[in-house]
């Protein structure tokens, strides 16, 4: 499973902010930690703000702060903002054949597992995984592990 760049940025930002919910951070600070584009991250942050997952304050000393419940917000909530994870609703060449239906059945099984997994991992749980794998690059490793899993 490969996540879009915006999705990865969003997950990094959410995990970083949620790990210190009392702290405000700038997009630049977050971008520096994960070695990602601060311009791209700023766009992602605006989207997360519109979704109510983070709060933004302007001016000197301003920045972003985590605004959601980490025990309620899950990975699927964040990922589904930036990329569709639902199975395609047909319409592709060959879908009406027995082979096409069989293929969709198998792919749906994989997609159902992906959705079930992502929706069961809250930000709070993800932070625990980060801490367990933390050697200074925990968040990156946790997201990388998520991506490199074999969904079978």
């Amino acid at each position, binding site marked *: 499973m490969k996540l879009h760049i915006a999705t990865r940025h969003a997950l990094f930002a959410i995990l970083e902010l949620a790990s210190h919910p009392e702290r405000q951070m700038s997009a630049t600070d977050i971008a520096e930690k994960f070695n990602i584009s601060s311009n791209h991250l700023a766009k992602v942050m605006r989207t997360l703000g519109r979704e109510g997952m983070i709060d933004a304050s302007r001016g000197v000393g301003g920045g972003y702060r985590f605004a959601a419940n980490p025990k309620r917000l899950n990975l699927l909530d964040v990922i589904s903002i930036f990329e569709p994870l639902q199975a395609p609703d047909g319409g592709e060449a060959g879908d009406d054949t027995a082979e096409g239906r069989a293929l969709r059945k198998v792919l749906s099984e994989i997609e*159902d597992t992906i959705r079930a997994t992502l*929706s069961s991992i809250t930000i*709070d749980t993800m932070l625990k995984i980060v801490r367990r794998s933390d050697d200074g690059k925990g968040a990156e490793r946790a997201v990388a592990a998520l991506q490199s899993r074999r969904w079978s």
Partner: protein
Amino acid sequence: MPDDQPNLTIRPAIPDDVAQITRLDQETTGVAKPDYWRQQFDLAQRPENQQYFLVAEGEGQFLGFIIGKVRAWEFGSPPCGWIFALNVPPKLRLHGAGSALFEAVCARFRQAGVTKVRTMIARDAQLVMSFFRSQGLMAGPFIELEKDLDE
């Protein structure tokens, strides 16, 4: 151990618990299975079965239960602890009883010499799956497969 619930204690189930457990399960699943829970209780009374049937209570109030069993070499798996029942009354959740039950049954598994704990959860049971994820469980090396026998 989580301490949200004051005076939370974990103890082995006693015969009087079975009726409450049956009621709680029926409220959750819609199916009454008194014989099943009685049988599980009876199995847990014999140490050689390595089955642990534990109850959480706080200030005399029933707060939930868990059942775990050490199973060996199923599908080639070395001995491990299986959790096959866990329930906390819906109004009493999120106060640490489930976590305390989980930790207690894991302690029993460790004492029995196993180093791995497993469970199986319906894919759409998000609440239950989120709970076990929060306890650190990840997908394991086995995949559950099934088919309708009339296919």
